[in-house]
């Protein structure tokens, strides 16, 4: 049925089709395109090409695989051991005597190994020692939470106690005192861990090691409480490692150091200069500055006199007060001349003040210079 709408629709469609046919609808910018060359090959050529890339089985003898080198040395402790060491601060163990063979792999706590008689000769394992019974390390870094809450923390056990497994034939403890105790007593066990507050799991730190695993210096030993007579035995029991050569040497070093420092700082001595000391270059520059004004007459009798003069400097490096003679060594008749030459040198070269580090003033406010012309005498 033909209606005006149908007519209009038909005319519109025809117009649109005609407009498209004429090309007006494609009058647009050409799209960018790329060209790819195509070569037509036959099926035989394609088979040849594929055959060249795929080796035929049995045509080439494959090389034998390289046998891996088996390391017969004892395996290194697994990496998982590191956190265990980190949790227990390592105690630098003094190597045994020079003629002692390399120590075996770490062994478990010394309960079973410690005897009252030092071993005659450490056994050198012929075969690689079995892997040590490593402490079980929980992969979960979260520390085990304490189930006991206390008002004060309990200090951990001696960190170096369980790992001192190196035979020490040099150490012969006093059998009358400690031999039985070492044998009978169980190794010290750390008291049950406690905490001062209830720890919420979400707020618990991860416990993962965040800094260096190995401390730079030996951690200080915890100060034991004032021992009571009854507890002395327990303290001794708690330290199965008797004093060794290492400890005695360290004690000697510490004692000597303390004695030296004590000797340098007597109670009645003046207060030590504060601040860092002058560096070598700073001392040299000061020395050179005075050198350049120290005029030596090598032909004079004064050239055979060594004088020591003292003076004070202000913060600008200028001499304040008098330059004084501290001591002299040589012909007394020429001492005065030698001193005058030294004083002249100090005063001449100060012109604008000696160039010295201001922050180290306490180090150079008082100066004593020895003028020794022995190297400049006529020979």
């Amino acid at each position, binding site marked *: 049925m033909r209606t005006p709408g149908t007519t209009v629709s038909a005319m519109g469609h025809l117009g649109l089709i005609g407009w498209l046919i004429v090309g007006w609808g494609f009058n647009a910018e050409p799209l960018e395109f790329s060209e790819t060359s195509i070569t037509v090959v036959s099926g035989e050529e394609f088979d040849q090409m594929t055959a060249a890339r795929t080796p035929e089985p049995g045509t080439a003898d494959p090389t034998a695989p390289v046998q891996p080198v088996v390391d017969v040395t004892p395996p290194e402790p697994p990496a998982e051991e590191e956190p265990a060491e980190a949790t227990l601060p390592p105690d630098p163990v003094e190597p045994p005597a020079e003629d002692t063979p390399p120590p075996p792999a770490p062994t478990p706590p010394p309960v079973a190994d410690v005897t009252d008689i030092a071993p005659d000769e450490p056994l050198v394992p012929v075969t690689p020692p079995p892997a040590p019974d490593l402490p079980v390390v929980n992969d979960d870094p979260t520390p085990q939470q304490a189930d006991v809450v206390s008002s004060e923390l309990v200090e951990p056990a001696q960190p170096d106690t369980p790992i001192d497994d190196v035979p020490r034939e040099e150490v012969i403890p006093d059998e009358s005192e400690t031999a039985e105790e070492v044998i009978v007593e169980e190794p010290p066990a750390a008291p049950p861990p406690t905490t001062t507050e209830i720890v919420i799991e979400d707020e618990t730190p991860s416990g993962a090691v965040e800094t260096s695993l190995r401390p730079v210096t030996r951690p200080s030993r915890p100060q034991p409480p004032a021992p009571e007579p009854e507890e002395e035995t327990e303290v001794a029991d708690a330290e199965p490692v008797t004093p060794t050569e290492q400890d005695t040497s360290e004690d000697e070093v510490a004692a000597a150091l303390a004695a030296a420092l004590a000797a*340098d700082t007597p109670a009645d001595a003046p207060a030590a200069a504060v601040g860092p000391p002058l560096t070598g270059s700073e001392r040299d520059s000061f020395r050179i500055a005075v050198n350049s004004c*120290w005029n030596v007459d*090598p032909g004079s009798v*004064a050239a055979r006199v060594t004088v020591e003069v003292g003076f004070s400097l202000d913060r600008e490096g200028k001499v304040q007060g008098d330059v004084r003679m501290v001591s002299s060594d040589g012909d007394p008749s020429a001492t005065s001349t030698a001193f005058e030459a030294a004083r002249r040198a100090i005063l001449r070269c100060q012109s604008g003040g000696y160039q010295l580090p201001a922050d180290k003033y306490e180090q150079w406010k008082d100066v004593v210079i020895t003028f020794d012309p022995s190297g400049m005498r006529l020979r």
Partner: protein
Amino acid sequence: MMKHILAVLLVLVLAVPAMAQNGPLRLTITDGVIEPITFAAPNFEAENAQAQQVASDLSRLVVQDLAGTGLFREVPATAFISQVSSFAQPVAFADWRAINAQALIVGAVAVNGQQLTVKFRLYDVFSGQELGDGLQFAGTVAGWRRMGHKVADAVYSRITGEGGYFDSRVVFVSESGPKDNRLKRLAIMDFDGANLQFLTDSSAIVLAPRFSPNGDRVLYTSFESGFPRINVLNVANVGRQQLQTAPGEMAFSPRFSRDGRQVIYSLSNGGNTDIYRTDLSSGQNVRLTSAPSIETAPSFSPDGSQIVFESDRSGTQQLYIMGANGGEPRRISFGDGRYGTPVWSPRGDLVAFTKQNAGRFHIGVMRTDGSEERLLTSSFLDEGPSWSPNGRVIMFSRETQGVAGSSTMYSVDISGRNLKAVPVQGGASDPSWGPLQP
């Protein structure tokens, strides 16, 4: 054991810095500089009109003396910031420090008729202090040079700590004429060549004059009689006295003892030359050596206890030391070449000598044990060293090569520096440096 060593080392390492930090900063200086000391000497103030010229001349003479030693250097007046118009005026040390004058000499001169008065002060500029007290000399206008030398001696002594030598005289042999007919006569002059006077005429050859310790007499060798003889000449009146020797003997190379009352010399008799000592007052002779070799050129030590001389007893000419009364000598020279004319230093620590080696002549010094030999000069012919009164400078004669060669006197510091000719008109040789004048 290692731990014990470690403990000790640790203590040392830690203790030393700790000690250094407790007391004053301590430094040791072993290397200085060798350079002249700078000084400023403004013209001395003329306190009256008559003193104007003398003040200027005297100031310049002081500067000349000091600078001539090589140990001092004058800061020229053109560099002065402030002027010294009055002797009593306070010193502006900052102005003199600014021109790096280490010493400042301030003086004043007054002339009243023929009377000359000189006063001076010496300041250490950098310490701002006066070195010693002010001094004043009085003399005649004609003797103004001696006044200047006195001032220079005082300055020299106060700064160096040693005696000066400016107010001293030198007796020597003045030479004239060609080399093959050279006329020689004794002459005396100030140490710097001024005030030259002749003590003898040139009718006879004279050699080796030697001052007495106090400078009042001169010993010398004269060929007036055809043989060498020793004469003692009084400097004041030029009177002479001959040392008696036997006929046929040749006496030469004399030198006074330290007290001036004895003379040691060489006496050659029968082909052998030995050293003798004669007491001038009694005429008594003492033979000090008796070796068949030639012993000559004796010189007393300052304390008079020893004598250094030359001898060829070892086959070559070497230096020996023996007691003042003779005895077994000990040899002190062992280097290559020949050693001669030894002279003991007034300080007593050194012996100056002439050395001939490899065709060259040298003036050198060595310690009295023969160690630390140092040659100060080298030329075609250097010989005859003589010490300055303070033992710091050596004067000697140097002769140039060739027919027209002439002899000139030179001086050199015992450090080997400051070698310079002594300004003398005509030829001059064989100097003997006298003592400081009173």
